[in-house]
């Protein structure tokens, strides 16, 4: 249940190949996150899997069955839209019942399932309200409830948290992860926020201009990015990427080191630089340090650090945490 395979899937809009050629395997029960910058094709890919768009080429298999020509309703998938797409003229109860009504279940069965979903999502008190009377987080839950109730082979999430404020986003992230733990159903989740990707995924698919840059677990992507794009995308703040003479010293076209993997010292080290802007978060301090011949580096220092604008500091990358990339952007060694 919930195994999805994509073989040579392509999508063209007129002359433009938004997705040139994608091969991907998603195992049953995995939480897969499609992540990438705006316009990279992640939502398009999700919609191809859902059946809301037709593929231009290639095959989509769901549980071994060729689903490429099946309409969305027949694929056994459920989708949670970015805007939730709740039916505004129906109560919460009717919203959640709708897919069951379309499937032809009898009313008693429908009521049972709706009550069940409502209990899981804490919606029991809101069943008779209309979407217009609910808060953003509640509407989110109704959208999820409508998806759960269908007992689909996989859940598809299209940037579901983008419309929520920061605090709510953190809570909903946890709720969705817990949902995954309890249901153990495959979930495909699209986001541009790499924090969501890192915290929720079993497997991350990094997309760029319609191509897969890398597929792997969060830590794999963090520790061993396959190219400069992934290196610069995963991790916040971004990895420092240095090219030119300094990179050549290490036998690469570009070298990279994460801000959290640099030691800061006021006495000595590999690179000498001047402190520019600093951001004091209390738990961490982020400093922008300009190093002669290297460039501007972001450095993370733990806790509060007594360093000020204009000070001279020395930076030393941790041993073994220096990433090397060739001229083509791919990782070396």
């Amino acid at each position, binding site marked *: 249940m919930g195994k999805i395979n994509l073989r040579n899937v392509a999508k063209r809009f007129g002359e433009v190949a938004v997705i040139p050629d994608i091969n991907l395997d998603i195992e049953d029960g995995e939480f897969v996150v499609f992540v990438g910058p705006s316009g990279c094709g992640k939502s398009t890919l999700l919609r191809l899997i859902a059946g809301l768009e037709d593929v231009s080429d290639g095959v989509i298999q769901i549980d071994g069955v060729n689903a490429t020509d099946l*309409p*969305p309703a027949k694929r056994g998938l459920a989708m949670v839209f970015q*805007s939730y797409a709740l*039916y*505004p003229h129906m109560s919460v109860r009717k919203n959640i019942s709708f897919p069951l009504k379309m499937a032809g279940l009898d009313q008693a069965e429908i009521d049972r399932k709706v009550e069940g979903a409502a209990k899981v999502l804490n919606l029991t008190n809101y069943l008779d309200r209309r979407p217009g009377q609910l808060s953003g987080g509640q509407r989110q839950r109704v959208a999820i409830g409508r998806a759960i109730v269908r007992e689909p082979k996989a859940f598809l999430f299209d940037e579901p948290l983008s419309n929520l404020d920061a605090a709510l986003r953190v809570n909903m992230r946890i709720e969705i992860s817990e949902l995954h733990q309890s249901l153990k159903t495959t979930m495909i989740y699209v986001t541009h926020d790499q924090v969501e990707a890192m915290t929720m995924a079993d497997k991350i698919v990094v997309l760029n201009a319609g191509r897969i840059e890398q597929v792997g677990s969060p830590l794999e992507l963090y520790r061993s990015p396959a190219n400069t794009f992934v290196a610069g995308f995963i991790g916040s703040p971004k990895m420092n990427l240095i090219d030119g003479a300094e990179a050549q010293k290490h036998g690469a076209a570009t070298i990279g080191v994460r801000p959290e993997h640099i030691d800061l010292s006021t006495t000595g080290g590999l690179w000498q630089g001047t402190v520019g802007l600093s951001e004091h978060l209390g738990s961490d301090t982020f400093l922008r340090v300009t190093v002669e011949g290297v460039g501007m580096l972001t450095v993370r220092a733990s806790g509060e650090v007594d360093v000020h604008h204009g000070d001279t500091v020395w930076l030393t990358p941790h041993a073994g945490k220096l990433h090397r990339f060739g001229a083509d952007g791919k990782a070396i060694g």
Partner: protein
Amino acid sequence: MARAQSPRRRLLMTLAAWSVALLIFFPVLWMVITSFKTEASAVASPPEFLSADWTLENYAEVWARSDYPRFFWNSVVISIGSTLLGLAVAIPAAWAMAFVPAKRTKDLLMWMLSTKMMPAVAVMIPLYLVFQRTGLFDTKIGLVLALMLMNLPIIVWMLYTYFREIPGEILEAARMDGAGLWNEILHVLTPMAIPGIASTMLLNVILAWNEAFWTITLTTTKAAPLSAFIASFSAPQGLFYAKLSAASAMAIAPILILGWFSQKQLVRGLTFGAVK
């Protein structure tokens, strides 16, 4: 434009605005006032206002005439009938153009609107003859057809703009929830489109009720609605001023009331989207 202005300027503006508004509205007001006067009072010179004789009998008499209720009913049937028929034809068309747009959709819409720019007199002659030959002349059904076709471009256009405002994602959600085309239209699209359909209906009933070309050229006595009646009897030999005023007041009252509710629809429907 909510600026704190000097109280004197506000008063001046208010007076000016009200004077202008009352001036514009005065003819309607004067007609209504005249309708409540006796005939003698209505033609008195100098015109009587406070000193006039007031009566309700004009309304009673006009209504009791054997033909006025018929004209009124004709107006009702023709305006509502042509609008409903137009909706029946236009709703599927507007649905298709809004949700399954093709390359030619915008051109098609423009073509439909352009048919409204055809001078009516150019098509009047054949229609007049065809209506005579087919027995549609001076029938309500004939007028329903003519007015429906005259307003069809506006009905399609308005519905199209309302349908486009329905978020596509909600229809996709319905599709994912297993709704086929028919279920999608029945359970999701139509309920969400009802306000738009109602607005379109409102404006077009108004336009059909007030129409004063086809209703005059394609009728004589049996199917004539109020517009034809008032047009023919305006030089009052049959009706006198007070009664003419009463007849006119009753003819425009329904639309004045509906018009109050339809301002937004009017802007949307008749400016073809140029003004929001």
